[in-house]
């Protein structure tokens, strides 16, 4: 049983450590998502502004491919923020119409990692194109690294502390259980309630053995004492 108890304590310590690690990792993921949202919100403003301009021109009857001033607009917006890699305006089939990186004009947009986009709609709310702002993932990666470092610095000692505290409390409880088991093997060391019950039983047994009718009031009194 001692081996079972020690195994149990070790297992509980591992569970405590694993759950602290789990909590720390998921906290990291939550913070990382919040950080990404904060960074992407910045680029969303740029995308929104260009989309609004294109929609305004479209509402005046200028088709998206004919909005040639967008070329200069996307180039200027891309220059404003060093974290912006490029800004593309796509048509409804995903082909690049205007881009701050002129080499991409006419090509399909392709996969869009590290990018935020906004729909360009006509007056009937139908999509006629899309603005895509690609950003440099370096700022995101630096933030993720900083978050990981901050959390790791705290999480590892906390994890070890939780495991050690579980082991310490487990050993204390096991020792207490062992003491209680030893006391339970000796009626004179039984807990008060058990000693009272034993006294009540012995009183009734003695009365019955003596042949006299036991007095229930006296029995109850013995039990109470």
């Amino acid at each position, binding site marked *: 049983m001692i081996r079972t108890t020690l195994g149990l304590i070790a297992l509980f310590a591992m569970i*405590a450590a694993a*759950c602290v690690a*789990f909590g720390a990792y998921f906290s990291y993921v939550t913070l990382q998502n919040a950080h990404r949202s904060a960074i992407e919100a910045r680029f969303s403003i740029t995308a929104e502004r260009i989309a609004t301009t294109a929609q305004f021109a479209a509402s005046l009857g200028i088709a998206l491919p004919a909005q040639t001033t967008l070329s200069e607009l996307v180039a200027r*917006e891309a220059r404003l923020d060093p974290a912006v890699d490029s800004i593309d305006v796509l048509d409804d089939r995903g082909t690049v119409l205007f881009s701050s990186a002129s080499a991409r004009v006419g090509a399909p947009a392709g996969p869009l990692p590290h990018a935020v986009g906004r729909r360009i709609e006509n007056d009937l709310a139908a999509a006629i194109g899309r603005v895509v702002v690609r950003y440099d993932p370096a700022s995101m990666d630096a933030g993720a690294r900083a978050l990981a470092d901050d959390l790791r610095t*705290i999480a590892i000692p906390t994890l070890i502390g939780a495991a050690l505290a579980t082991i310490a409390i487990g050993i204390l409880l096991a020792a207490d259980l062992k003491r*209680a088991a030893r006391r339970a093997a000796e009626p004179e060391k039984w807990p008060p*309630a058990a000693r009272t*019950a034993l006294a009540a*039983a012995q009183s009734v047994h003695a009365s019955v053995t003596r042949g006299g009718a036991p007095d229930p009031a006296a029995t109850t009194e013995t039990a109470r004492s």
Partner: protein
Amino acid sequence: MIGLRAGISLAIAVILCAALAVIGWAAGRAAERTIVPAISAKAESVGRSAAALVENAVQAGIPLDQLVGVRDYFDDLRAANAELAQIRMLTTFGAVLTQSGAASLPPDTPIVYSSVAARSGAPLATIAIAIDTSVISAQVSAVLVDVAFIGIVSLLVALELVALVVGTSGVEALAALEARIRALASGRLSQHASEDAAKLPLIAPIDARVEQVNAVHRQVRATAEESGDAHALAALAEVETRTGLGSVHPGENHAATIVRPALFLFMVAEELTRPFLPRLVQGLVPPKLPFSLDFAMSLPIVVFMAGVALCQLPFAVASERLGRRSSFMLGALIAALGYCASGLTGDYWLFLGTRLLSAIGYALVFVSAQGHVIDHSRPSERTAGLAVFVKAIMVAGLCGPPIGGVIADRLGGQAAFLVSSGLAVIALVVAFFSLPRSAPRRSGAGVGLSELAAALKAPRLTALLFGCALPAKFLLVAVCFYLVPVELQREGYSAAAIGRLQMIYPILMVVAVPVFAALAERMNARSGFVIAGGLIAGGGALLLTLGTSPALIALVLALLGIGQSMSIAPQSALVADSARHVPGGSSAGVLGLFRLIERSGNAAGPAAAGLLLAAIGFAAATASIGIMVVAGALAFALSGRHASATPTEAVNRPEVSPEGTPL
């Protein structure tokens, strides 16, 4: 006396709370260092963009002081970005040309400056953007609330793992020792049933002492019986009642504890899919369908829910026929195949089929686990056992979605389905090792419509099913999962904020269900708890007529959680007791019928709530549903005269109930 298992569970809870609080503090510090600068950088970007626009206008020949629409532009920027407290355009001498936002600012308000320059590079003006730090603090606080929720999830996962370990047969000896010490501490001198544990070095001396006392008692009783001494026999009987002498303690009933780990793992497998399923389905929807994209995205969920609801009744009987362990394992296997196929297929229609397959497995596992708890619990333990069953499902509902969301984010939705499949297989293995072998019960095959009709004539069962069970699920789905989110979204609250409010319900359920279940049993008042729960939950919904502030909605959801945690386990136990009225005494059909009716409330809730919302508005819709729930609870109350329709039979059922023997 607190045992080693309970003590260490409590200790782990306290230690993890402290450890996770430290992690939360570290998260707060990390957020200050990384997220706050990222939010501030947005203000700089806005400033640079505004400055560029002004430069363009100036370069086009418009003097700075004759620019029009600048104030409106600044107002629009502030409206779109809540953290921008004030935007001003200043001359190079500091005079204000245009201003939007607060007239005065606290002295320590951070301000971001962007310079407006002429083509020559000469400075013309400055755009000054003041950042509202309280908005940033609120944004960081929202992130930290999410982190705190992660802490709760971690704690719940830890406690489930602890329960898994505590429930294994490897710690039976420890449980036997604790049971003996606890019995002595409460003044009980009864003997204990477990024979294997009795040989262990720490247990044998205790049993020997207790046996000595019991042997003397037996001898004295035999003497009194021989002499026919009625007074002595009465005194001995009185001492037996008080001390437990002459009786055998049946040992702990582990029915719910044993099934809990396997059930929890299986339920987590399904709950993992919740956050990413709509997005995954969106990618599978073929371009030309005879119905809308929204409907196509909801169809896999509808197929799953309908599959689970429709399988409840037939599977309740099938599970009884096959045996609970075999049917649990079969269900887990079917669901695992379903999840695996869902993860591998790229075809929308095939995906619908795989979801139906998972629903079949889910329903079989659900009815088998529920049947196991009912079969192996004495009537007096049924509510507590069902509370453990409900808690395992609720905890899985809390833990699964955030974990599934992260897996889908990192590995993709298809991979997350494969993880679900793996978890279902682990649940199968855990069920194989933990659930007792149970012989198939051929007698369970005879539950048909006529028997169910007979069961419905049982005292108060119809009132319970249609007055309490169905309205309870209807209220939950309609108010908590549909009306409240739709109303809050309409008022402009973010999805994350709505999600945080919705967490109030499951957290309260997890905490309060076992407490109320134990109280209902102790007070022998299952019906009372069902009625009170309905009145509290339904009455809470009526509060939404007063307004829709987040505090009021939190209160309504808290009342919903408290009300339903009062009623959910006693309600299932009352239904299980009603099975006595089915010819043959089978519980399967009645429980199947109960779950079918209950889940009809689940299915009808969103559709009916949508119709009510469109027809009479939010306040009237919630009030109508609340009144329906209150009326149902009152109808159930009026349907019987006694405190409990099916009083527990604890006093009359003293027989030993070893695990593995259906009671």
